């Protein structure tokens, strides 16, 4: 599955914060699979807020349990349209 620019940025942020190689993180990977615990999770949310200069509400943050979910929540918040689905 090809990932768009936002997904790639999220993967890079997660990779940096978790000290993981970016290429080891798949867009559909869950936090559990990546061994991201709740404290790691809030750290990643903080990094996203800093990067995109926005405030992610607690309830949104709580639902971020995979790379895909982070990207989806972020996209919604950034109010950017989803990329066209591959035909």
């Amino acid at each position, binding site marked *: 599955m090809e990932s768009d620019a936002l997904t790639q940025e999220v993967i890079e942020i997660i990779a940096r914060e978790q000290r993981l190689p970016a290429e080891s993180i798949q867009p559909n990977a869950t936090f559990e699979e990546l061994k991201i615990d709740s*404290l790691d999770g809030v*750290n990643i949310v903080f990094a996203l807020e*800093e990067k995109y200069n926005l*405030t992610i509400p607690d309830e949104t943050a709580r639902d971020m349990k995979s790379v895909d979910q982070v990207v989806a929540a972020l996209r919604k918040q950034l109010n950017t349209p989803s990329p066209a689905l591959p035909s």
Partner: protein
Amino acid sequence: MERVVITGFGLLSPCGNSAQSFWEQVSQGISGLGPVTRVDASLLGNNVAGEVRGFNPDEHFGRQIDLLDRFAQLGLVAARQALADAGLATRLEEGNGGPAPHRVGVLTGTALGGVESEDASFYQLYGKKSPRLHPFCIPRMMFNAASAHISMESGAQGPCFAVSSACASATHALGEAMRMVRNGTADIMLAGGADAPLTLGVFKAWEAMRVLAPPEPSAQAACRPFSVDRAGLVLSEGAAMFVLESERSARRRGARIYAELAGYGASADASHITLPSQQGPLRAMQQALLDAGLNPGDIDYINAHGTATRVNDPIESAAIGSLLGEHASTVAVSSTKSVHGHAMGASGALELAATLLAMQNNCVPPTANVTEVDPECNLDITPNQPKAKTIRAALSNSFAFGGLNAVVALRQFK
């Protein structure tokens, strides 16, 4: 009741990051104080501090470093040294023949906890108007962080918390930990102190109290306890951790025993928030002797609190004089703060290390930088030169703002 012995220790200090380098400097009165590098010194009234040098955190920690304020870094590395020195495994495991993890506890003293993280974080908020703080602020700032990380890393599952009583924190921690081993609560306590208070905020707060020494005649010689020309204390940082162990546990595993931590006394002046009394410290020293079953005549050395402030030194001298009575002239006293500075909540632990090393080496470390002994400090304060002496038993004093006093007694183990 269990006898409590010291079977290992480790430290990081302005006088070096190992017991050996610490003793090389402390025993010779070689100052570890110097110009400040950790903050912008141009903002300081007095450019002098005792910094831990040659410590590169990245060499000691992987990813966990994100969660470690400098005080916890120093405490954790000192604890690793202490465990290794005691011949204990880095990681306690059930059923591997070593001490049971649930019988090992951790108690660290700290006066200021993760103040470096607090200072930096709140600057983001107040100074930079950042809308948010880093989510690791709380785990980095909390005073129990050093204890918690030592427990997590070593696997110690016994009692674990922090003790905070300003400048007496480490000595209170060591004394309380000793009691826990003595009364059977734990077989081993990792105890000591850690503080890293060299932030702009802390410097300026101390500066406002007008008790910091200027770097005169040099930064190295700024701290002159008991000297007639003493001009104040010098802030420093560091950590020292000890393995306090029941004699039974130490013998069972054939551990080397350095000395017996034989007594502990604690008291409160109950009078003034900054002015010390003579009676409070005296009662703490008397209790430490009583607790250890020692008489004033059994003591050969006292590592004084000796801050080099105008107020502390004569009052402490009078209290010591009152404790020792006719023995005052034969007991060696010194303040090693003259070379390692005042590491706040870690001071008592660094000073117990100095006291233990003095006992090991039959050598009283000097009070350095003394130009002329203040006649109001009428004791043998071991000015400038070490003194060869057999030390059968010793006291280490720590007195804190708030009038909180803690004293531990060390005795040769026989």
